[in-house]
């Protein structure tokens, strides 16, 4: 097991009676990247502020390299923070911005110049050093903000919603840049974001948060394919995971979920011993995990098409199930239009069963 760089132990933070962070425990290894993912107001930024020291936790422990930093002031924790709006010092040139942290560390000027040269080459800011932030574009400002922190080579680099202020077209390129920085510096990085694309594409591990509580902390793939509960399932995926509510039933030897007159057969592996026929269940299946099925496929079912939304490479079809509906991704060419029918079959290993009340995942056909 690589060295644990940062560990949060039962972290809590209460503002009045609202507990913004509720008993969160996470460990992240050296030069790993982790994403704190969750809707706005789920406590992810509060955790960020506590790690950096701008806010004091109500209870719990924060260990960096195994040592507690609770009463270490923000300046001395040697952690780097990049803000969503970059927070570049607008009255200073890029060079002064980059040198700010080093001057505080009382570094001698030649050494500072060398460090600045190194980081500006690395972030291709070489020719901008003497320009004022007001003359720079968003992605350049972002690189200055990152460079300003990187140059003090912090133990951990934290980025708060790094891409949300960028133009859509710039995002792909900036994500590539962040991955390059990760790869070349081996820096331990924590992203705080509400955008699932950012989390999936930048982080090895994802911690999904909601209302202050940690929902799931696992590799990006597991969080996406085997969501621990309905919230995680619904938060990731575009369009999000379908949740089909119905009664568990037996239909010619095969377990199905039925609601109203539509039924959906379930893959064999999914049913655990304790599931009684007739009980309420919620089936979680991603739109892309439902495929067009041939007429003779045993696991197939048909339902009425409600709407067809072309997306370019694929088309999103909204189909009815009982009184609710679900979405499915089909290749662009499929001939389906509102009112017609469509026969589908769930991909055997990617269907999850959730408890109707708690939303916690009961069984997963993939076995994970």
């Amino acid at each position, binding site marked *: 097991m690589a060295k644990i760089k940062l560990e949060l132990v039962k972290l809590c933070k209460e503002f009045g009676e609202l507990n913004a962070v509720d008993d969160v425990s996470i460990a992240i290894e050296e030069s790993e990247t982790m994403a704190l993912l969750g809707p706005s107001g789920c406590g992810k930024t509060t955790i960020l502020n506590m790690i950096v020291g*701008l806010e004091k936790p109500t209870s719990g422990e924060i260990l960096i390299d195994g040592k507690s930093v609770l009463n270490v002031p923000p300046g*001395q924790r040697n952690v780097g923070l990049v803000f969503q709006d970059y*927070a570049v010092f607008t*009255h200073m040139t890029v060079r002064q911005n980059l040198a*700010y942290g080093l001057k505080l560390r009382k570094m001698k000027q030649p050494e500072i110049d060398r460090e600045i040269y190194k980081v500006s080459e690395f972030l291709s800011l070489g020719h901008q050093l003497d320009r004022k932030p007001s003359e720079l574009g968003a992605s350049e400002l972002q690189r200055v903000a990152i460079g300003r922190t990187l140059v003090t080579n912090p133990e951990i680099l934290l980025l708060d919603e790094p891409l949300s202020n960028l133009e859509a077209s710039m995002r792909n390129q900036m994500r590539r840049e962040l991955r390059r920085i990760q790869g070349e510096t081996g820096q331990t990085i924590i992203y705080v974001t509400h955008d699932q694309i950012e989390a999936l594409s930048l982080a090895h591990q994802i911690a999904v948060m909601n209302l202050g509580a940690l929902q799931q902390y696992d590799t990006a793939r597991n969080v996406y394919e085997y969501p621990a509960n309905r919230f995680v399932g619904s938060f990731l995926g575009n369009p999000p995971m379908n949740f089909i509510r119905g009664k568990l039933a037996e239909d010619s030897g095969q377990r199905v979920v039925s609601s109203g007159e539509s039924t959906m057969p379930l893959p064999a592996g999914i049913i655990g011993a304790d599931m009684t026929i007739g009980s309420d269940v919620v089936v979680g299946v991603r739109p892309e995990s439902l495929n067009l099925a041939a007429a003779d496929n045993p696991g197939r079912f048909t339902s009425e098409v409600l709407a067809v939304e072309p997306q370019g490479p694929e088309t999103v079809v909204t189909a009815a199930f009982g009184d609710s509906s679900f979405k499915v991704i089909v290749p662009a060419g499929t001939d389906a239009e509102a009112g017609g029918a469509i026969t589908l079959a769930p991909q055997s290993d990617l269907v999850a069963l959730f408890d109707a009340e708690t939303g916690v995942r009961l069984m997963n056909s993939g076995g994970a």
Partner: protein
Amino acid sequence: MLIFPFILEFVISLTEWQPIYGDFWDAFASVFTHKINQGVGYNYLITDEPRYLQALGRTVIISVISLCLEFVIGLALATLFLKKFWGKRLWFTALLSPMMIMPVVVGYTWFMLFQYNGPVNQFIGWITFSETNLMWLNTGHLAFIAVITTEVWHWTPLFFLIMLSGLNSVPENPIRAATVLGASNFKIFWTIILPNMKAVIIIAFVIRGMEVIKLFDEIYILTRGGPGTATETISLYLYKLAFEDFRLAYAGSAAFIVLIITVVLINMMLKPIRYQLVEGR
């Protein structure tokens, strides 16, 4: 409403017209019948009317000193208000109260305070443990200090208010970024907060500067420009010229020169605040 007076002013300043000469329309007509004094009023003022230039000088000195004092005190008080303390709201209203007082009343109040046996002398007596009875309003440089004290007392709250809103408008994140990079509060104040407030400070100086060169009410009541011309600012000089000596023509030309100077000043000052005013951001 405002353009007409300027034209009128220029016209009169060209004529020798005095109220006693007869009614105004003849003077107006005389301009067109080349009886004008070829602007003798102007060169008279500049060449051999020392009082005019001295008044201008005094106005500038008073303005500069009081503005700097107001800035320093205002900023100091504003930084104190960054901290939390009991009764902040009440304290804030009390500190703002001088600004609410009419200039005339400010004049009379300080007139009383600066009396020979008034509380100011008493207060100084306590501090210097000696019986002091300075003739504040009757000796040249003391009157000067009295006028500046009154001005500083009256308008420091505005500086305090602008500095406070300036301090609060400094974006939060650069400060937190500097904290995380390891800067101390003191360092943050000098390297982040103050530079960020440059625009606000300029605006405060410009706005207050426009007011202080027009100073009239307080001085008129406090010292009426006295003793002699020790505290005679440009406004007082113009007032005396126009409404006491009734030499309206000269007063006209003097006022016109002041208008020109103000126009120049406006253009100089307009640049920093134009962005703010026009965009209204």
